[in-house]
């Protein structure tokens, strides 16, 4: 399933305090591809992800997911999209603190009104290596383990698209490697990942560079060094 953005503009705030987060962004994420989005802080990465996933409205332009324009959908329809076809992983605060790991994993399907047999949830947790922590609450899991539960949840609904916002930002290097290997191993999904870590970005097929709300560069088959070099160039003050 492909995701396409066409001339998307997004402003935060009103009136004099308004900030333009996305200033005319056009991009296409082909089905089955793994794209990383990089950029300095304040470049609009998270906003881009949130608009692409339909978590936020755009002020101008269009977002099309699998042929359906998100702008024309009402909230209930967008929610359905998120239950069934779009998975989302955040940097932190992914899980409901009151639910156990397996209850968290089963959440989207429960919201869709479907009964989730325990076996299914446990299998999903086993795929991320946490089958023995099924009954534990988020407060009893480490940051890395929480992130893996979130990925398991995102995968359980077998989404067509997976959006990940800095999924390894709060993890130590070993856990980060495991999470990225998991994502890399997914062949059927379109993955769009926001990150500021060149090593993480190098796991993707393609890297898009964002600065001041615009796409300013693209890199295919990235290596960590190439990514880092491009980033340094972008972050350098103008005129040098």
């Amino acid at each position: 399933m492909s995701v396409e953005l066409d001339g998307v503009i997004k402003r935060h705030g009103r009136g004099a305090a308004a900030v333009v987060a996305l200033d005319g962004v056009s991009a296409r994420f082909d089905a089955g591809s793994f794209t990383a989005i990089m950029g300095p802080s304040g470049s609009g990465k998270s906003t881009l992800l949130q608009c692409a996933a339909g978590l936020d409205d755009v002020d101008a332009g269009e977002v099309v997911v699998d042929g359906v324009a998100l702008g024309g959908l009402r909230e209930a329809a967008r929610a359905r999209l998120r239950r069934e076809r779009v998975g989302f992983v955040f940097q932190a605060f992914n899980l409901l603190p009151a639910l156990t790991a397996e209850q968290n994993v089963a959440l989207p399907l429960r919201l869709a009104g479907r009964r989730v047999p325990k076996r299914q949830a446990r299998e999903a947790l086993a795929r991320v290596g946490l089958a023995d922590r099924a009954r534990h609450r988020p407060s009893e899991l480490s940051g890395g383990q929480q992130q893996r539960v979130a990925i398991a949840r995102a995968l359980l609904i077998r989404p067509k698209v997976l959006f990940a916002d800095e999924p390894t930002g709060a993890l130590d290097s070993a856990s980060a490697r495991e999470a990225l290997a998991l994502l890399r191993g997914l062949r059927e999904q379109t993955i769009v990942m926001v990150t500021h870590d060149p090593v993480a970005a190098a796991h993707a097929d393609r890297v898009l560079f964002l600065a001041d709300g615009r796409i300013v560069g693209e890199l295919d088959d990235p290596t960590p060094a190439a990514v880092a070099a491009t980033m340094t160039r972008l972050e350098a003050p103008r005129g040098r």
Partner: protein
Amino acid sequence: MLRLAALTLRGRWPALAGAFAALAVGAALAISAVQVLAAASGAAPSGPQRYRTVPVVVTAPVALRRTIAGEVESEPNPRRGALSPALAARIAALPRVRRAVVDRAVHVRTPAGASLVGRPWSARFGARLLAGRAPAAPGEIAAAHGVGDVLVTPAGIARYRVVGTVAEGVFFSDAEAARLAPRIDALAVWPRSAARSVRDVAGRRASVLTGAARTDAEPSAARDAAAAAGVLLSLMAMTLGFVATFVVASSFAFAVALRRRELALLRAVGASPRQIRRLVLREAALVALAGGLAGAAASLLVAPLLGRWIASKGLAPDDLDVSPTPLSLPLGAGFMLAVALAGAWLAARRAARTRPAEALRDAVVDRGVMTVSRWLVGVPSLAGAVALALATVSAEADAQLPLTFGAATLAILGLALLAPLVVPPLVALLAPRSVLIRRHARAGVRRTAATAAPVLVAVGLAGSLAALVNSISASDAAATRARVDPGALVVSADSGLFRGDLAALRATGAAVGVTAEGDLRTGASVYRALGVDAGAIPLVLRVRALEGSPAALRGRTIALGELAARALRKGAGDRLRVWLPDGRRARLRVVAVLADGFGPVSVYVPRGVLPGPATAAYVRGHEAAVRAVARARGLQVAGGTATRAVADVTDSSNMNPLALLVILGVATLYVAIALAATAAIATVARAGELALLRLAGATRAQVVRLVALEALVTTIVGGLLGCAVTALVVGGLRRGLDGLEGPGAVALPWGLVAALIAGFAAIAITAAALAAHRSQRPAPHLVAP
């Protein structure tokens, strides 16, 4: 979704502790109210009591029938006229009538002042002789223990021979009863089958009562008291509903704001807006269920206490037995469930509208809180409150409290909706030098409003109603003082004064003026009337006449008080059609409009217009002699300008202070709970924010002081808004009274309002300081976000 609600609730229950406590207390009170009401109406005797053994009772018409605008209205007539002796004789002579007994009410007094109703012996209707024999000769009576043999009768003070003992009351021989009370109250007829022929003869001149209708012929003090108890308990339920909904609404709005991120996560994971709304409402239902159970347990204790309080005010028998009834639990709990859902509804709607992306951003600042709908509902509410407040003075006595309640609640609603606009400037006013307090209040305006709102509700309600009730009594006193000769004494008795009493008073050489009281009805309204004879006019009508002259009160005339004149739009020379207390119609000529202010009496008529005995005599003369007469005849004496207490427990002058007490009690209790909970939770929720202050260099003591100061300021802001509500009501009263020529007083409840604000401030400060102290115990970097 229900399971999700239960699970998330488990993690978040402290935030809803305030709502739980409010619902539990409400459930306890609501369930108790239903039980007490059931017990009180059960205790009120149903069915005829005295006439139980009499198959057919014939009296003067029991219902007032009036034709207003072509429609016939009928309502029970509290003071019936007498049955004509000619008609009674005709009925007794009917062939189908086997037996007919004349029933009379002989009002007598013991010298100690106790009032009794004596009956003819043949009208004892089932009362039995406990000892001795029946009274036969005129000088004989059968009496209960403690009545004695000296009685003050309409014919004078007389000593009787007690020949028999009965359980209660006193019985005369038939001839003596006829002499003392020539008026026929009712005719008891046997057998039942004669009813039809009696009706044919009586036509419209009498009511012929059988079966359950016989209760209409009996005085119904117990039933009236039960009805009044019902009104009071309904008022309590209304206050409960309003205040509880308010508290629950603030608690849930606040809880939803605290859970912004969690709700956004749910939305991001695929929950539709409707599912979020249902989640919040189901949580509310669960809290209501828990509260209902707790309240039901508490009601086992509360209901008997409530019943005892109601009985102590004379609205129910002393031996009232309050026990759990099967209906009380579902009714009470169901009521609180409705309150919980109503209160949580707005919060649920707002929760459903959270846009996931917005809420995921770390926005601690409330923006865009003043929505269009707040303006659309807030401003008309305030306008409505003003209108109701202005209408209070000229309304009927029974309507004044409900009007003030309505004005206060509308004003509270309006101010609460406009709070985001009004609260920050007030905070700036109170804390001009503290940047932190001002900024915190503006940024967390929802949190500030959640703490100030309960104070606004309690102070607004208490202040307004206290202002009304105290103003009414102050005005009554002022009006009476202005009207009545300060040198006069007022002599009265519970069931009225006899001719003999008046003669004895006149014999002391004093100037005696005789008055009677009653209610006159026009098409839509009721006016309290004072009937005065010629001697009373100089003693009790010493007010300026705006039109005409009260000296002309003779025959079929009436003098209007200024409020009545305005309401009726009549002046001197006009004619007025009224219904008298006994149901007869009269056309009276208006001879004067008096500047009598805002007092208990609305209109003044000549003594002869009002039926029934004299209620009071105003006497100016040798005080010692007058007091001696009163002592001998069992009468009560007081200073003329003292406000007379109305004996009827259900009269608005007695009910209003009770209503005030009920409302005050409920509102204060609720607000205390809400305040403690909100202040504590708000402080715990801000733990991260406060820890940042410590990282910047503040000590823990400084942070606690800041939090305490903020709590104080917020409470005072709520109190000031509550004072604004009171001022609105007082303004309405003032405006109404300004237009009057005569005296009227507005009482400002400063003491009450100050005491309430001080008490609430103490609660809020303590709760917030304790919460801050506890939440800031760990090192700041562990707590900061």
